[in-house]
């Protein structure tokens, strides 16, 4: 049984309420940090823990914090990114919905470390009912002296506010999120300057994912070094994985990053295998923007080694034969699923969510959607596949923010690993409308090296 640091208490009855959360040991990390540590010492513990940002990029959190500019007399801000919108990802929702005080506790400690007296949770607008849950937790924390002025008599002031977005995936990008929080369209900013220097209202700002900030609680309670002992290599601590698609037990799981992908999919402790006795065809292991992998390359690397659920192992082989940990959104497709159609829905998603600022993304995502729809409907040409490849290459790396890359990668990986399924949609067009290509020869590991 893997060790749980975040969701261990998530199923205790009434853990949403302050009394129960406190009785179960909640808010100890605030006492420890504010009374016995300096802000820099808290940052030092986070550095020692090896914690990497849980939103998708995996950047070391302690390092991000240490970049925060601290000019005299200018406020600094912590903004928690709860704009969880990457298809396949629903872990932050779970954490906020079931154990909201963990996020509030992590935010108080993190705000102390960063010197933020006014911190925000930017939550996607659709998570409407969760706003109430969070606001109640904040109110309870304030009533019990964990928020407000002079917390625990230490002189540290902190307030937390929840800001609802209004339906824009792009606002998960940190500079777009800041724009949105300033009451504007979610157009990402050109970096530099980075938010650590010029963020919210031009003040130094740290934007961190919900899970990242929640992980600060066990790091302070147990110490950074202890936290770093869990996991493997540079994948320290535990990770929330949201698993979905054709699984027996889709849901949110907390794993320590030493288990294999095979164990995660098939063991009863996690996803319990593929639904309806079907076979595994493909998987997008880290949210819709990371490369899709056929079953053989998912379970084993190109070198034939077991693939594990951690940052290094999932990216083993680069984009040619590997993928990424990303946001932990684990999407599983069974043998009946059509990769062309699935990729089409993702292309449509990115076209819908492009902010329209950069032409490669604005125009390219629309072209990719149209071409994929044509292929999916059996009206495509062989040259459409090459055109798709060409378009995705022209988007990647040519936009202000990573949405362009995020739109390009799923298309590239689908063609790279499933090219014969795309071709079949052209050569067997009438069949493609009513039937799926199935597994065909995807069990052949050589396919992966195309």
């Amino acid at each position, binding site marked *: 049984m893997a060790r749980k640091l975040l969701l261990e208490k998530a199923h205790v009855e009434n853990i949403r309420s302050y009394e129960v959360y406190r009785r179960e040991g909640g808010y100890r990390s605030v006492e420890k940090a504010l009374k016995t540590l300096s802000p820099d010492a808290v940052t030092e513990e986070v550095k020692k823990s090896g914690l990497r940002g849980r939103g998708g990029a995996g950047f070391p959190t302690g390092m991000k914090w240490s970049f925060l500019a601290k000019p005299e007399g200018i406020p600094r801000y912590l903004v928690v990114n709860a704009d969880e919108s990457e*298809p396949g990802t629903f872990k932050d929702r779970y954490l906020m919905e079931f154990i909201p005080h963990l996020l509030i506790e992590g935010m108080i400690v993190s705000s102390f470390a960063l010197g933020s007296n006014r911190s925000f949770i930017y939550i996607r607008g659709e998570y409407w009912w969760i706003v109430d849950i969070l606001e109640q937790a904040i109110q309870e924390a304030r009533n019990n002296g964990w928020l407000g002025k002079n917390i625990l008599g230490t002189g540290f002031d902190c307030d937390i506010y929840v*800001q609802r977005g209004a339906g824009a995936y792009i606002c998960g990008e940190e500079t777009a999120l800041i724009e949105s929080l300033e009451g504007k369209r979610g157009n990402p900013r050109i970096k530099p300057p980075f938010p650590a220097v010029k963020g919210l209202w031009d003040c130094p700002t740290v934007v961190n994912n919900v899970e990242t900030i929640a992980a600060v609680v066990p790091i302070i309670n147990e110490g950074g070094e202890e936290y770093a002992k869990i996991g493997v290599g540079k994948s320290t601590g535990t990770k929330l994985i949201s698993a979905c698609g054709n699984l027996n037990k889709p849901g949110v799981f907390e794993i320590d990053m030493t288990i294999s992908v095979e164990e995660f999919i098939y063991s009863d402790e996690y996803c319990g295998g593929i639904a309806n006795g079907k076979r595994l065809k493909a998987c997008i292991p880290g949210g*819709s923007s990371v490369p899709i992998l056929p079953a053989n390359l998912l379970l084993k690397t190109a070198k034939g080694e077991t693939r594990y659920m951690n940052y290094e192992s999932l990216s083993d082989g680069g984009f040619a034969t590997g993928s990424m940990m990303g946001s932990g959104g684990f999407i599983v497709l069974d043998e009946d699923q059509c990769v062309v159609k699935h990729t089409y829905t993702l292309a449509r998603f990115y076209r819908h969510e492009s902010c329209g600022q950069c032409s490669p993304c604005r125009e390219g995502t629309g072209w990719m959607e149209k071409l994929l729809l044509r292929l999916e409907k059996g009206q495509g040409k062989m040259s459409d596949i090459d055109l798709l490849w060409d378009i995705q290459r022209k988007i990647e790396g040519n936009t202000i923010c990573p949405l362009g890359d995020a739109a390009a990668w799923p298309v590239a990986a689908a063609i790279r690993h499933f090219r014969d399924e795309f071709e079949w949609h052209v050569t067997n067009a009438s069949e493609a409308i009513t039937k799926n290509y199935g597994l065909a020869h995807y069990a052949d590991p050589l396919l992966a090296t195309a």
Partner: protein
Amino acid sequence: MIQFSESKQKEVEQIVARYPAGKQKSALIPVLHLAQQEFGGWLDVPVMDYVASLLQLKPIEVYEVATFYSMFNLKPVGKYMFEVCQTGPCMVSGCDDIIAYIGEKLGIKPGETTSDGLFTLKTVECLGACGYAPMMQMGKYYKEHLTREKVDQIIEECRREAARINN
């Protein structure tokens, strides 16, 4: 005349107070949410102009935000809006069938509203409920693990609630 009730005006003041002085533009999205709820489920131009005057913004600053975010409705919608997710994970879990079924049952296509003004069907992109698919948003809450039976039940409940309010 378009105006928030006194209690809603207080709410606007509380929202503005979250931000430093002079940064009241940050209140725009929360106040637009509030306006949409209060003024019939969508944002008409006079409503947006009212929000602009409340927050001391130029009307264009409000329009450009209202048109950017997909949760703001720029034309009237039904009393009950069924926003069904159609992105990849929901697709592999059977959302196409659910969308078709709702459309058939209500006699409308995605993007349309029933003639009695009760229901709007809308397809949306990922709502972060992929493990509980197929699903849709209805107002503040999610309806998950949708089946045809569950859809029947939801529509029935909406109709009963609407009839109760009308009586």
